[in-house]
């Protein structure tokens, strides 16, 4: 029974990291219909920023996790400049597919640029302890502080984000743009600014996810965003892409499936089960768990 609870906790923690990344995917997809392949690499950027700012932060006497603030700023800047330099010109000229290729090229570019920077290099870097070590025991189950902080922070962020998109003017503008760009322009919304803002928020979430990932697996390398981003994207699609609560739900489901297959079936087959669940769910509900099946107009 304690294995079950331990697995559940691990799954929730992993799931909330996936959910945070998936939110970035889903927001960008919702607004410009582009699978942002470079999003995984924003996590890598965030990870390195955290690693490099931790010594500075510690010297100032603040706890290590404060470095996430720097990561948030850097990631948001990287995300917004990606949109400005690469995606916007292509979006004006090309089709959806060319935008997709640009995203792939951007991801490749970021990964290899990081390797070309001498302080980063191709070898992994190890981070120091981010949250306090140890944890609270409930009977036979241990809740590590890392887990507790991860769950709390991601829950708070999701709540804030949801309120932001539902209640504020900027959030409403974002939802308008994703529904109908032309109509949004007519209503006086600056579409390009809104898209830029979306990229900023999505990338900032990736930075937070990077911190949580590092808290658990204290190692960064230039290709760390690959599989992490892929699974997050899968979570976004599973929940129904473009839908914010869907990304959260999808992330948690994927995290739980992964941790349960790892501890009960086989650790090397975990990916197979993650994707198998995905395929089964999508065959039953083709628009994702929370997605609505829109009938086609003729």
């Amino acid at each position, binding site marked *: 029974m304690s294995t079950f609870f331990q697995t559940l906790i691990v799954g929730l923690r992993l799931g909330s990291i996936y959910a945070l990344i998936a939110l970035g995917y889903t927001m960008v997809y919702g607004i410009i219909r582009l699978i942002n392949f470079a999003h995984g690499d924003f996590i890598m950027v965030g990870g390195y920023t955290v690693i490099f700012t931790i010594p500075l932060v510690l010297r100032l006497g603040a706890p290590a996790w404060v470095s996430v603030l720097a990561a948030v700023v850097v990631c948001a800047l990287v995300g917004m400049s990606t949109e400005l330099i690469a995606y916007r010109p292509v979006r004006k000229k090309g089709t959806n597919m060319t935008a997709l290729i640009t995203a792939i090229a951007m991801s490749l*570019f970021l990964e290899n640029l990081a390797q070309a920077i001498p302080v980063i290099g191709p070898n992994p870097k190890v981070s120091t302890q981010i949250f306090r070590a140890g944890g609270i025991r409930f009977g036979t189950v241990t809740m590590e502080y890392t887990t507790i902080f991860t769950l709390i922070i991601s829950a708070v962020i999701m709540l804030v984000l949801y309120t932001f998109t539902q209640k504020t003017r900027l959030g409403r503008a974002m939802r308008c743009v994703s529904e109908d760009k032309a109509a949004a322009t007519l209503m006086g919304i600056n579409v390009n600014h809104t898209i830029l803002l979306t990229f900023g928020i999505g990338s900032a979430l990736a930075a937070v996810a990077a911190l949580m990932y590092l808290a658990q697996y204290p190692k960064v390398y230039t290709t760390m965003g690959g599989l992490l981003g892929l699974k997050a994207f899968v979570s976004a699609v599973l929940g129904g892409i473009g839908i914010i609560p869907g990304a959260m739900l999808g992330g948690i489901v994927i995290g739980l499936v992964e941790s349960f297959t790892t501890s009960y079936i086989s650790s090397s087959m975990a990916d197979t089960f993650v994707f*198998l669940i995905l395929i089964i769910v999508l065959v039953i509900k083709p628009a994702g768990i929370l997605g609505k099946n829109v009938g086609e107009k003729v």
Partner: protein
Amino acid sequence: MNLKKTSNGYLLNTVVIVLLFTAFQILTKVKGSDGSFKLVLVPSLWQCCYLMVLACSLNLVLGFMGQLSLGHCGFMAVGAYTAALLSLACERSGFFTGKSDPMFLLVMIASFLAAGTLSALLSLLVGIPALRLKGDYLAIITLGFGMIIVNIINNLPFCGQDGLALGSAAASLYKNGLGFGSKAKVQFLWFALIVTILSLTLMFMFVRSKYGRAIRAIRDDEIAASASGVNVAGFKVLTFAYSGFFAGIAGALYACTNATLSTSSFAFTNGGILNSTFVVVMVVLGGMGSLTGSAVAAAIMFFVNYQIKNGTWVDLLPSSVKGIFEYPMLVYALVLIVVILFRPKGIFGSYEFSLQNLIPDLRRAAAQRKAARQERKEARANG
């Protein structure tokens, strides 16, 4: 009259291909043992062959049917492992000894066909859920299938995580099975070329047939196509299987080219240019809906990649620029972004290169350019 034009086109293409092929055979005979020919040109040709077949096979699904598939290399992996394991099994059971055995040719053909058939069957499996899904949901399902295939191959005891590179199978794949050394690559180059030409021709004929017209109708408007009596479900599954067959053939060619197999070559992304994402890049770069475009793009991508990594001109660059070339994929990404910015519809668009129409097409393009220039001049004069 139209029919006559088509058959004339086929005749012309056949003649040119046969001429080129004979010329190449003679070249091989003359220069077969030459160092750079054996070690650079021939291996490059082998790699181009499988990249071309792979890119064209994806173009059937992506360019002509309009369904984004992100797991194409998964089928290639199935083909590669099937061909390699089958040839190894034949060798171990004593069916043939050595590469000069005439039976080896038979085994080679058999393993290519088996590779194609098995991956076609697996593609059928993907095609069926594809009927219910569209756009990015379909993309993610194919991506999932690609990952599952690679993951399962990793966990099969006779394939293993490190592929056939380690353990008892390795040496024998290289020496006795389909894995070709540089000498055998020269010896069997004709086989690779014929397989490639045959595959491209079959795909080309598919696209030109009534099936090709049907899948293009599905791409343009699924509802209108089904209203006009096109069996949408049937054609989708058929095209997936057909494309999967050639992905398997490409995999078998890959198994011949590389003496070792490892699943990391067939992943969704990796450090090189052979992965599911880059096949999509090849197709889009060449132009969706142009088979010749895909073939050309595959060759160009290979060439650029090779030149960035091994080109002698890199040494001539000033040292500040040369620093970037230590990271080939960085240069590659930049090249890709620039190409996409300047030719957003791909190199060929939906234009098919053809020998027969080359001269009229060139003339028309020149006329169009002239008209555009004239228009610009007039606009400048007026404005």
